[in-house]
């Protein structure tokens, strides 16, 4: 097997696994940049995956091959609505952000499995007929070498995720809204003094994270798992959280980290078919994202610091 053949297997698979991680990690960035810790990303992905699959199954007859795309939008809305629970609890009711995030994760699994049993009378849904499938991107795929490697036999969703990452970078670093969002996460009192509505900005941050988390879950469900059960989302949300930290709370950094984690995940699945990897135990690839994140936090790979006010409540008038 030549190098080219190996790359032809690895690159599309990496991008496939990376897409949901990129989207969800971007969601985490919106929330944490506004100062609200969101370990409920996993739960938001669960909601997104569930919504997308149920919507897909019930409307595929009328919407045809547009179904997965419409399902993405619906899942975004569902994630946004669900994340409002986290926003209300951790911003207005001053709940501990981490505890509220844990509750979000438990609640999402409970609610979705309850609904699956209510709607389908069994533990998991049917497999969707119309998901995202492999395509060759027009024009770009005819570029020699690069076209074959990056734009053939791949998924639209991977490119959507990368484009959204660039948009998020622009929004957070180049717009007044982004500056306000960041200032609320770094020093809410100073931001408040300058007339920025801290509570409103934080709500927006959390709701955007819900929308992107839902989108990430929907992409995962419709391109990788194709149905919904208790094991559909198992740790992707936390891996996205890891990507966000490893990327130092920067949209493009998080994208890079997510692509790297996607690479590790896809290697752990396709590794057996690659000549030089078949002797390396799977477990190293499986734990790589988590170990690397711990090392990054420790400062061995350049120190990662969270936004200063993340995890704290802003109470007007207190010092």
């Amino acid at each position, binding site marked *: 097997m030549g190098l080219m053949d190996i790359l032809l297997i690895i690159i599309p698979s990496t991008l496939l696994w990376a897409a949901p991680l990129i989207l969800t990690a971007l969601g985490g960035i919106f929330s944490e940049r506004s100062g609200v810790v969101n370990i409920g990303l996993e739960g938001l992905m669960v909601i997104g995956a569930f919504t997308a699959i149920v919507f897909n199954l019930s409307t595929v007859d009328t919407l045809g091959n547009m179904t997965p795309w419409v399902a993405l939008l619906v899942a975004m809305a569902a994630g946004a609505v669900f994340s409002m629970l986290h926003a209300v*609890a951790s911003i207005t009711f001053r709940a501990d952000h981490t*505890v509220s995030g844990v509750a979000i994760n438990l609640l999402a699994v*409970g609610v979705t*499995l309850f609904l699956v049993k209510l709607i389908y009378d069994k533990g998991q849904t049917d497999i969707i007929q119309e998901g995202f499938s492999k395509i060759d991107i027009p024009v770009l795929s005819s570029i020699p070498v690069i076209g074959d490697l990056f734009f053939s036999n791949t998924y639209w969703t991977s490119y959507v995720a990368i484009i959204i990452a660039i948009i998020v970078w622009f929004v957070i670093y180049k717009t007044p809204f982004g500056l306000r969002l960041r200032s609320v996460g770094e020093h809410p009192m100073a931001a408040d003094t300058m007339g920025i509505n801290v509570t409103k900005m934080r709500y927006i941050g959390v709701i955007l994270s819900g929308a992107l988390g839902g989108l990430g879950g929907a992409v995962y469900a419709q391109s990788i798992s194709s149905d919904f059960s208790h094991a559909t989302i198992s740790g992707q949300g936390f891996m996205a959280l890891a990507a966000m930290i490893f990327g130092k709370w920067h949209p493009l950094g998080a994208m890079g980290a997510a692509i790297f984690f996607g690479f590790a995940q896809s290697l752990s699945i396709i590794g057996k078919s690659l000549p030089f990897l078949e002797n390396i135990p799977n477990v190293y690839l499986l734990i790589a994202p988590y170990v690397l994140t711990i090392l990054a936090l420790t400062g061995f790979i350049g120190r990662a610091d969270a936004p200063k006010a993340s995890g704290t409540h802003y109470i007007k008038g207190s010092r």
Partner: protein
Amino acid sequence: MSNRTKNILVPVIAVLLGILVGTIIMVASGYDAAAGYTALWNGAFGDVYFTGEVIRQVTPYILAGLAVAFAFRTGLFNIGVEGQLIVGWLAAVWVGVSFDLPKVIHLPLAILAAAAAGALWAFIPGYLKAKFRVHEVIVTIMMNYVALHVTNNVIRTVLSEGKERSENIADTASLRSPFFEGLTEYSRLHWGIFIAVICAILMWFILEKTTKGFELRAVGFNEHASQYAGMNVKNNIILSMVISGTFAGLAGAMEGLGTFGYTAIKSGFTGVGFDGIAVALLGGNTAIGVVLAAFLFGSLKVGALNMPLEAGIPNELVDIIIALIIFFVASSYIIRWFIQRMSKKGVK
């Protein structure tokens, strides 16, 4: 109204609100709520077998709750109980299958191995927190997944030859109790409940009655003041995580040596560690509160299994209720504010 009454009132209100919302969900989904709660009750206490299962479930819940609560009391948030539990489970079974010893040595050795494994798994985030100021929440989450994959690998390669589960542990390392089994019509109730209760008393004693416990709490309240008073902040942070991890590892021993008697490859988490967060929060992070909350959640979890059989209601309803209870306890600020308003009105 005194603070003490309020501290008791908040969890009670949270539970009632959780059950209220659970009822609304059942009614809105077209289920018979009364039948649902009857089924839940019968599933937990309708039969001595079920009650045995409840206490069996309460055992790891107490220990996981103690692990979270101990860390909380000393200013740390240990989300890694799940991972520490898994490595404790593995260590206990590992000792249980590999040695041939008399029971008086084998069983304590297996339990100690679980405690040590849990402590070691918690030592890492504790050390990183003390030495590099890394937030323990993220590290413990990451350690959970490392634990899951590493233990699966050990089960596949060391404890078996490519199989899905280990062999059963030797009888000499087992916590199983023929006496309890006879008493409860062959439920899986085992001796572990005594270990759990002893640990609860131990936690109360360490935190409330010893100088070291005072130090640990002091560091949790205010690091700088503790440092100024001459306490070694770093060592206390590490010690606190290690004790918390010990409890979590013991919870794993309960599953490995008591309930199951073996360990198997897991596709996901057991959930006991995360439920431990709920137990600790509801119990107000006190030893007695944890025991009571573990009892509530244990009955809910076991009773829920009867809901689909007797009332046709998915047992996930109980997971929803538990999650809602966490929400309400976490949002205690608003409940307290509400109590304040109500009691003020009463005075007028």
